[in-house]
C-alpha cells in the first residue's frame, strides 16, 4: 500500500502513527542516496552503512521536525552529514579522517566494481576538505547549493565556489588520468 504513496503521505503516516512500514518505504527510496553520500565521505563502506543507519534512526525520531520546506531527501542528507561530522569528532579524528580521505588512496575499499567508483573516490581525495564536502553533498546527495549551504553552515556563495572549484579540479584530475592511461 505504501509503495504507491508520495513521500509526503508516508511522512504523515510516520508522524501520526510512527508507522514502521511507511518509514521502511522511505528508507527504501532514499537509502541509495544517503549510503552513497556516506560512502563518498567515509571511504569505508562498513562505517558508511553504520552511519547511514544511524542517520535514518535519527530521522525517524525527529521526523516531526521536518517542516516540508525543501525536499525530504535534502533533509535526510543534512542529518546524514551531521552524523558523519559527529562520528568524526567522536573518533577525535575530523582532521585525521579528512587527511586520510586526501592521502590514503590505498585504503579505499574495493567496491563491487573497480574502476569508476574507485576513480571517483581517488579524484575526490585531491579536493580540499570543504570542496569535497560541497561537491559530495550536491552530486551524491542531490542537494541544491542553497540546501548544501544550509546543511554545512557555509555562506551560499562559498558553497557555489567550492562546488565549481571542486568540479574543475575533478575535471582536470580525470583528464590527467586519461592522458596517463592512453
Amino acid at each position, binding site marked *: 500500500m505504501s509503495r504507491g504513496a508520495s513521500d509526503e503521505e508516508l511522512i504523515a503516516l510516520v508522524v501520526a502513527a510512527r508507522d514502521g512500514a511507511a518509514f*521502511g518505504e522511505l528508507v527504501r527510496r532514499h537509502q541509495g542516496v544517503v549510503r552513497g553520500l556516506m560512502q563518498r565521505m567515509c571511504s569505508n563502506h562498513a562505517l558508511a552503512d553504520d552511519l547511514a543507519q544511524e542517520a535514518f534512526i535519527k530521522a*525517524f525520531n525527529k521526523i516531526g521536525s521536518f517542516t516540508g520546506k525543501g525536499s525530504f531527501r535534502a533533509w535526510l542528507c543534512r542529518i546524514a552529514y551531521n552524523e558523519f561530522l559527529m562520528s568524526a569528532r567522536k573518533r577525535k579524528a575530523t582532521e585525521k579522517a579528512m587527511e586520510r580521505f586526501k592521502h590514503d588512496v590505498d585504503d579505499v575499499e574495493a567496491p563491487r566494481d573497480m574502476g569508476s567508483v574507485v576513480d571517483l573516490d581517488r579524484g575526490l581525495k585531491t579536493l580540499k576538505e570543504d570542496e569535497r564536502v560541497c561537491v559530495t553533498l550536491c552530486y551524491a546527495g542531490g542537494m541544491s547549493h542553497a540546501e548544501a549551504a544550509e546543511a554545512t553552515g557555509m555562506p551560499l556563495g562559498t558553497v557555489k565556489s567550492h562546488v565549481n572549484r571542486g568540479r574543475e579540479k575533478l575535471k582536470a584530475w580525470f583528464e590527467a588520468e586519461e592522458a596517463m592511461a592512453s
Partner: protein
Amino acid sequence: MTMNDPFEDRLRAAFAAAQPADDDAEDFVKKVQGRLARPDRRRALVLGGAGSTGSAVAGTQLEGFFSNPDLLPTDGIMGQVFTYTSPEMLAAGVLALMIAGFAVVVPKNLYAG
C-alpha cells in the same frame, strides 16, 4: 552545478554509479526497521531494574517511616491525612505513585532512542 557540458553529465553518472547496488537495499531497510522495532531494550532493562530495586528498598522502609509520629507533620491538610490514614495505606499510595512514574518515564525513554 547547473552547467551543461559533457563533463557535468559524466560526473553525475559517476556519482550515480557509485551509489550502493539495489540488491542489498532490502537488507539495509530490514536492519533499520529492526532497530526501530526494538530501540534500546538494554537501556530499558537497566533503568527498569534499577528503578524497581530502588522502589523495593524504599517500600520496605516506608511503613516504618509512616509509623513514626516524630517524622510526620501534625498540622494542616497533611497532618489530617497522616492522622486518618494507616501507615500501610500511605506506603501503598507512595509505591503506586512510583510505579506510575516509571510507567510514564520508561516508554518516553524508549521512544527518545
